[in-house]
C-alpha cells in the first residue's frame, strides 16, 4: 500500500471524550457513528447530530454496531440489543433476556453470510440470532469466568470464532464449540482476532502477532505407530502397530477395540456398508462392524494369499488385497458375516509377478489399479489383468517407465494420477499417455489423496502440495507447522464432509479445505514508484531527464509469506524476465523510447496465472535529438552559411563596383578635365589676349598651366587639401574671368581653409554653373563661394541657357555625389530654390586621402 492517503479529517467537537465503537455506512450512503459514552450520531456531510429516537437518547455506551441484511442497525449495549431502523418509518425494537438473550451486556456483533447475527456477550460467551427462526439461540456457553468477548469473526460458512482476553473458541452453527489451545508463547492478553480471506486466523497478543492456517488441525492421540486410517460410523479409525483405535470427534475420546486380538495393522478399508476391513502384518484380515462390534478373521487358512496385507481397496461388495504373497480378491453377497465370502488369489488366476504392491486403487470407473515396487502399473479391467504401459511423451520428458509406484489417485475425466519413487507425479489418460505432470522438487510424494473440494493432495515429508482443479498448486510447509511432519505412506482417508485425515506415526493431521477450488493468486500491490507521475496512472510521458524508473512493490500471500518470489521485466530494455525475491527494481539512464514494466508475484514459482502490475511510459528524447530541432538547426546553419556567402559576394561585388566607379569617376574627371571645349575656349581666350597684351597673355598661360598642373598632380587623389583645391579654383576662375570679363562675378567668402575635399569638386560646381546659366552683359552671372568650417557652398542665381548645351553630359554632379557617397556619410546637398541653385560640399577632417 502506498503511504499516500488523502486524509480528509473531520473534527467533531460534540463527540469529544468518547470512544468510537462503530462506523456504519448504509446503502443510502449515510454515515452513522456509534460511540461508547455518547450514543449514536449521524453525519450528513456537514454536521454531526445525535440520534435520539425514543430510548436511544438515553443509551450512551454502545459497544458495537452493524447493519443487518435488512438495513436495520443493531446496537450492542449494556441493556441488550437494540435494533434501530432509520429512515421513513423510524422504528426501534429490543432483544433482551426476555427474548432469550443470555446476558444483557452485549459486547460484539458479527454478521454471518446467511444473515445470522453472532452475538458476543460479556459473561456468557456467544449467542446467535438465527434469521430463519427470528430467535436468539444461546450457544453452548463456557464457564462464566471466561471473560468478556473482545472479538468475533466469521470463519468458514456456519462457523464463528470468538476471542476473549485469554481464550479463543470456535463455534459451529449447530451449537457445538471447541476451545483452541493457545501456544505457550501467548502470554499477554489477546487484543484482537481476525479470520482473513485466505483462511488464516490472526491473533494479536500484546505486540506479537500469531497466525494459524486453519486448514490443518493437529491431533495427538497419545498413541504411536499409526499406520492406517479409516472413517466409519462417525469415528476416525486408527490402525496402529498395537491394534485398533476409534477416535470420536464429538466427545474427544479414543477407545480401543478388539483389544484381545493381536493386531499390527498395516491397512484399512471401509466398504459401502460401513464395515471396516483391516489388514495386518502377519495376522491376516479382519472385518469389523463398528456398530455391533462383531468381527471376522480370515487368514491364509481361509484362502488368503498371505497373512500380511499391505493395502486394501474395494468397490461395492468386492475388495482387493495387496498381500506379501500376491493379490487376493474377496467378494461377498449381502453381509460378509453370513459366511458367504469367496476368496480368489490372483497369482493363480493371472500371470502376476511376485512383487510388493504399494497401492491398490479401485477407480470410479470400475478399473482397479495396482502400483508395484519395481514392476510398474497393473490394471484389472473387465476380468482382465494386464500391465499398463505409460507412454512417455516428448512433452513430459520422463526418461522411462515409472517402475515403482507409491500412490494412485483419481483424476478428472477418468484419468489417474500416480506418484513414483523418483518423485515424478504423472497424470495418465485412458491409454497410458501422459497428460500432465507435477514437479514436486523437494522430495518424493508418499501419498496422493483427493479432498472433497476437488483438490488433489500430494503428501510428502515436511510438506503438502494441494492442487486445485485448475492445476494450480499451493505448498503448505513450515509456515503451516508441517516441518516435522513425517507421513506414513498411503495412510490417508477422505471423510464424509470432504476433509482429509492424514497419519504421521504419532500424530494425525486433519485437512479441511478452504475455498481452494477458487483461483488464488499472490495479490500484488504497488508501494511506490518514481517518477511519481506513474503512481496512479497506467501510462506516462516522461521528459528526457526523467529517464529512470524506481519501483517498489509487494505481493500478499499470508499463508506463507516466505515462499513469495517475483519476476519482472522492462520491455524495451530487458530481453528476459528477471527472477528475484527483492521488493523493488531500478532502471536508470534509459535511452529514449517506449517501455513497459511488468512485475508478477508467485508463491510456487509458477507464474502462469500470476497477477501482474504494469506501467507503461515513454522517455522523450532530449531536445537536441528531436527531429524538429535537428531539422531546424540544419536549416539555420544552411541559412547562415547562405547569408554569409551571399553577403560576402555582395561585399566583394560592392568593392568591385566601388573600384569601378572610382575608376570611372577618375576617368570622367580626367575626361572632364581634358574637356576639349574647355581647352578650345581657353585657347580662344588666350588668342584674344595675346593680341591685346603680351604680358597678360603670359599670366594667362601661367594660370592655365598652373591649373593643369594641379589637375595632373591631384588626378589620382580621392581627397586633397582644401587650400590646394581653392588654389586650383582660383586658377580656374582667373581663366574664366579672362574669358567672360565682367559678365562673371565670383564672390568668395572663405572663413576657414582647412580640411579635405575631393579634387576639382569646387571647380566642377563652378563649371556647372557656367554651363547651365546665361553669362552675358545683359545677364551677368554671380557665383558665390562660401567656405566655412564644415561646408563649401557654391550657389548661383538660376538663369538658364535657352538652348541646352551639348557640352553637358550630366555626369559631373551626379558622379561627384557618388564619389562623396563612398567617402563619407555626409551628403552633398543640392538645393534648387526659386531663383537660386546651391550646392554644399562637406569638408572632411578625419578622412585622410587614400
Amino acid at each position: 500500500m502506498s503511504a499516500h492517503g488523502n486524509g480528509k479529517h473531520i473534527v467533531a467537537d460534540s463527540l469529544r471524550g468518547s470512544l468510537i465503537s462503530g462506523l456504519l455506512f448504509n446503502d443510502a450512503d449515510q454515515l452513522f457513528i456509534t460511540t461508547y459514552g455518547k450514543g449514536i450520531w449521524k453525519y450528513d456531510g456537514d454536521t454531526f447530530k445525535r440520534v435520539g429516537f425514543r430510548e436511544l437518547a438515553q443509551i450512551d455506551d454502545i459497544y458495537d454496531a452493524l447493519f443487518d441484511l435488512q438495513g436495520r442497525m443493531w446496537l450492542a449495549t449494556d441493556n441488550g440489543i437494540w435494533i434501530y431502523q432509520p429512515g421513513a418509518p423510524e422504528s426501534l425494537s429490543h432483544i433482551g433476556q426476555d427474548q432469550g438473550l443470555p446476558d444483557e451486556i452485549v459486547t460484539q456483533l458479527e454478521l454471518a453470510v446467511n444473515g445470522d447475527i453472532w452475538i458476543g456477550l460479556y459473561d456468557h460467551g456467544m449467542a446467535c440470532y438465527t434469521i430463519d427462526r427470528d430467535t436468539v439461540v444461546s450457544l453452548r456457553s463456557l464457564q462464566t469466568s471466561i471473560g468478556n468477548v473482545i472479538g468475533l469473526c466469521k470463519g468458514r460458512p456456519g462457523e464463528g470464532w470468538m476471542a476473549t482476553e485469554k481464550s479463543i473458541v470456535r463455534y459451529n452453527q449447530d451449537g457445538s464449540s471447541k476451545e483452541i489451545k493457545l501456544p505457550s508463547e501467548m502470554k499477554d492478553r489477546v487484543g484482537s482476532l481476525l479470520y482473513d480471506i485466505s483462511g488464516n486466523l490472526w491473533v494479536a497478543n500484546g505486540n506479537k502477532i500469531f497466525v494459524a492456517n486453519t486448514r490443518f488441525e493437529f491431533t495427538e492421540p497419545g498413541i504411536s505407530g499409526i499406520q492406517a486410517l479409516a472413517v466409519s460410523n462417525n469415528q476416525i479409525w486408527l490402525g496402529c502397530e498395537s491394534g485398533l483405535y476409534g477416535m470420536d470427534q464429538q466427545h474427544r475420546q479414543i477407545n480401543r477395540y478388539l483389544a484381545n486380538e493381536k493386531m499390527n495393522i498395516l491397512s484399512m478399508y471401509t466398504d459401502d456398508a460401513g464395515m471396516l476391513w483391516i489388514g495386518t502384518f502377519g495376522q491376516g484380515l479382519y472385518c469389523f462392524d463398528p456398530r455391533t462390534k462383531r468381527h471376522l478373521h480370515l487368514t491364509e487358512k481361509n484362502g488368503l494369499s498371505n497373512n500380511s496385507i499391505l493395502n486394501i481397496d474395494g468397490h461395492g461388495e468386492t475388495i482387493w488385497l495387496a498381500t506379501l504373497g500376491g493379490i487376493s480378491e474377496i467378494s461377498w453377497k449381502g453381509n460378509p458375516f453370513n459366511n458367504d465370502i469367496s476368496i480368489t488369489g490372483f497369482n493363480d488366476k493371472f500371470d502376476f509377478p511376485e512383487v510388493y504392491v504399494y497401492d491398490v486403487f479401485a477407480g470410479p470407473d470400475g478399473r482397479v489399479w495396482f502400483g508395484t515396487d519395481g514392476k510398474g502399473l497393473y490394471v484389472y479391467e473387465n476380468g482382465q489383468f494386464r500391465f499398463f504401459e505409460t507412454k512417455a511423451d516428448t512433452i513430459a520428458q520422463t526418461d522411462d517407465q515409472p517402475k515403482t509406484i507409491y500412490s494412485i489417485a483419481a483424476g478428472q475425466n477418468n484419468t489417474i494420477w500416480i506418484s513414483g519413487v523418483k518423485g515424478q507425479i504423472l497424470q495418465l489418460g485412458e491409454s497410458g499417455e501422459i497428460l500432465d505432470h507435477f514437479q514436486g522438487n523437494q522430495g518424493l510424494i508418499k501419498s496422493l489423496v483427493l479432498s472433497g473440494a476437488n483438490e488433489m493432495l500430494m503428501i510428502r515429508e515436511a510438506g503438502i502440495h494441494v492442487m486445485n482443479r485448475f492445476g494450480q498448486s499451493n505448498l503448505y510447509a513450515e509456515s503451516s507447522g508441517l516441518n516435522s511432519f513425517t507421513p506414513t505412506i498411503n495412510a490417508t482417508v477422505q471423510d464424509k464432509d470432504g476433509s482429509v485425515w492424514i497419519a504421521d506415526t504419532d500424530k494425525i493431521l486433519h485437512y479441511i479445505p478452504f475455498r481452494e477450488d477458487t483461483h488464488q493468486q499472490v495479490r500484488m500491490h504497488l508501494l511506490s514508484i518514481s517518477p511519481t507521475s506513474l503512481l496512479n496512472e497506467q501510462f506516462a510521458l516522461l521528459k528526457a531527464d526523467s529517464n529512470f524508473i524506481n519501483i517498489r512493490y509487494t505481493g500478499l500471500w499470508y499463508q506463507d509469506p516466505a515462499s513469495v518470489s517475483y519476476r519482472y521485466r522492462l520491455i524495451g530494455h530487458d530481453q528476459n524476465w528477471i527472477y528475484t525475491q527483492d521488493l523493488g527494481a531500478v532502471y536508470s539512464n534509459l535511452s529514449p523510447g517506449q517501455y513497459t514494466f511488468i512485475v508478477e508475484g508467485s508463491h510456487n514459482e509458477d507464474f502462469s496465472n500470476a497477477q501482474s502490475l504494469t506501467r507503461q511510459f515513454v522517455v522523450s528524447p532530449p531536445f537536441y535529438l528531436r527531429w524538429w530541432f535537428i531539422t531546424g538547426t540544419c536549416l539555420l546553419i544552411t541559412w547562415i552559411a547562405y547569408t554569409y556567402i551571399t553577403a560576402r559576394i555582395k561585399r566583394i561585388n560592392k568593392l568591385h563596383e566601388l573600384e569601378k566607379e572610382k575608376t570611372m569617376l577618375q576617368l570622367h574627371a580626367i575626361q572632364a578635365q581634358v574637356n576639349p571645349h574647355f581647352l578650345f575656349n581657353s585657347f580662344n581666350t588666350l588668342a584674344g589676349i595675346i593680341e591685346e597684351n603680351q604680358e597678360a597673355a603670359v599670366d594667362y598661360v601661367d594660370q592655365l598651366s598652373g591649373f593643369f598642373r594641379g589637375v595632373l598632380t591631384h588626378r589620382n587623389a580621392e581627397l586633397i587639401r582644401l587650400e590646394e583645391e581653392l588654389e586650383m579654383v582660383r586658377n580656374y576662375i582667373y581663366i574664366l574671368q579672362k574669358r567672360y570679363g565682367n559678365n562673371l562675378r565670383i564672390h568668395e567668402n572663405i572663413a576657414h581653409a582647412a580640411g579635405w575635399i575631393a579634387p576639382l569638386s569646387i571647380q566642377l560646381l563652378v563649371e556647372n554653373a557656367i554651363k547651365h546659366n546665361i553669362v552675358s552683359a545683359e545677364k551677368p552671372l554671380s557665383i558665390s563661394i562660401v567656405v566655412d568650417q564644415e561646408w563649401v557652398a557654391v550657389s548661383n542665381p538660376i538663369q538658364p541657357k535657352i538652348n541646352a548645351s551639348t557640352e553637358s553630359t550630366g555626369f559631373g554632379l551626379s558622379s561627384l555625389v557618388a564619389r562623396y557617397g563612398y567617402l563619407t556619410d555626409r551628403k552633398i546637398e543640392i538645393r534648387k530654390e526659386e531663383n537660386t541653385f546651391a550646392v554644399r560640399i562637406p569638408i572632411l577632417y578625419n578622412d585622410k586621402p587614400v
Partner: protein
Amino acid sequence: MKIFWLLLLSFTCSHVFSQDFYFRKEPPLVVEDVRQINIIFQAEDQMIWLGTDKGVFWYDGRRYRQSYVLISNWQRLPALPKVAKVRSGRDMKMDICIRCLLMVMVSI
C-alpha cells in the same frame, strides 16, 4: 460370554485428546516501540492493517510499514484506541485511511 468380555475390553483405554492449530509467530512489530496491538483488520484489497497504541501500520507478510496521511505535513495516523473498530470503506485503502482518521480525529 466371549462377546461380553470382548465388549468390555473394547471399551477400555479411552482417553481424551486435543486438537490444535499450529500458530506461527510473525516477525515482531518492534517499530516505534509498539506495546499493544489493539486491532487486526483486513482491507478489501487483502492488505492486513494493525491498529496499535503507537499508530496504524500495515503488514504485507514481510515488513510493517507505518501509515501516514497527507494532511499538511504527512501526519501519522494516531493510535487507535481499543474499543474503536475499523470497518472497511466501500472501495480502496484510501477510503480506509480516511475513515481511520475520521474516526480517530473525532474521538480525541
